[in-house]
């Protein structure tokens, strides 16, 4: 009786061990098939761009393409900077100071994708509506952004995203 019992335990252990090893193997096989859908090496190699901000005149804005999305580079006027800095943090839905959002006050660099549902806000061209706060206005669902790209009115939950960037010379910035 005891023998049979022991035999069965050993048998169960074998089945469990085999199934467990098989499950580990299946997981290892699954990974390459999942990972192949991630960005490939050549895509990642293009993940950062360099841009010369001296090409943007004061008061003007330029849209550059970065990782398939528009990036707004705006050369802000002193008035726009002052406006952005004067806003009390308590008035903001997504509180951030302007200094946190712009390494150099005169150059604002944000991803031009509305944080509501992904439309591209208007406000780059001089003729565009800039919304009630002088920044950008998203025509899809009426989000208003200020001169620091912060959400002030409308359905969007967050400020326009600031991409990771650094100045590699006085005027040339590397985004990404």
């Amino acid at each position, binding site marked *: 009786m005891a023998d049979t019992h022991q035999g069965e335990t050993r048998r169960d252990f074998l089945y469990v061990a085999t199934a467990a*090893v098989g499950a580990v*193997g299946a997981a290892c096989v699954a990974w390459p098939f999942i990972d192949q859908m991630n960005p490939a*090496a050549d895509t990642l190699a293009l993940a950062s761009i360099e841009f010369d901000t001296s090409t943007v005149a004061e008061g003007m804005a330029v849209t550059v393409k970065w990782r398939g999305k528009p990036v707004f580079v705006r050369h802000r006027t002193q008035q726009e900077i002052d406006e952005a800095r004067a806003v009390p943090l308590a008035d903001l839905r997504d509180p951030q100071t302007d200094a946190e959002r712009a390494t150099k006050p005169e150059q604002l660099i944000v991803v031009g994708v509305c944080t509501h549902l992904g439309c591209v806000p208007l406000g780059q061209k001089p003729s565009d509506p800039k919304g009630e706060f002088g920044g950008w206005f998203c025509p899809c669902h009426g989000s208003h952004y200020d001169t620091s790209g912060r959400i002030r009115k409308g359905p969007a939950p967050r400020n326009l995203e600031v991409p990771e960037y650094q100045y590699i010379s006085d005027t040339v910035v590397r985004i990404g």
Partner: protein
Amino acid sequence: MIARIKTLAAAGLVAASLAAPAAMAAEGVAIPSQEWSFGGIFGTFDRAALQRGFQVYQNVCASCHGLDYVAYRNLEQLGYNEDEIKAIAAEKQVTDGPNDEGEMFERPAKPSDRFVSPFPNDAAARAANGGALPPELSLIVDARAGGADYIYAVLTGYQDAPSGVTVPDGMYYNAYFPGHQIAMPPPLFPDGVTYGDGTAATIAQQAKDVTTFLAWASEPNLEERKRAGLMTILFLLVFTGLLYATKRKIWADVH
């Protein structure tokens, strides 16, 4: 059981013999085999040889042969750092554009660019080389029967034509090239390059190094492949052992 193993082994042999014909070299000349750092199941690329081979490619081959599928960023695997790669890439100009004025423009190559071809297109390459097209080299080791051994054999196989064989103008006699007549002049000379690490640049050494580099260019994932292969097969041996034990247990009551 033993009979079964025998029959399965026989099946394996049949399978192997079926598989053999496609892999045989097409030409009659036997290619001597060499020792390669990347050969065998544990093989890895010798980094120093890769860098020397890259130097030979840059100084000797690159003026005629492209490396179309390799990007400058891939040189990281050879042990170069980001700044060195940027500098290597920036030596070449690529056409980009159009710019805001609608014009195409030249700019220095970036690490994300693929190696810049020496000729704008095949016709230009032929025109510059007396009608012969210098093949693109990034797959040359995979694309020739004999692989690395063959590339090494051709690079070191220049000889005087045997008596009775006349080699036309603009052609050279090569012991291992199919048909023995090759349009490429002997590319390697003793001390044709000066190695930074002090290795003596004999023809054999240069051929070996550049072949190692080209083998890497053909298959930059070779090391990862072999490492993954060892792990996979070890795992499968354990797993198959367990499956065999399971099968035995389950079948224990069948008579």
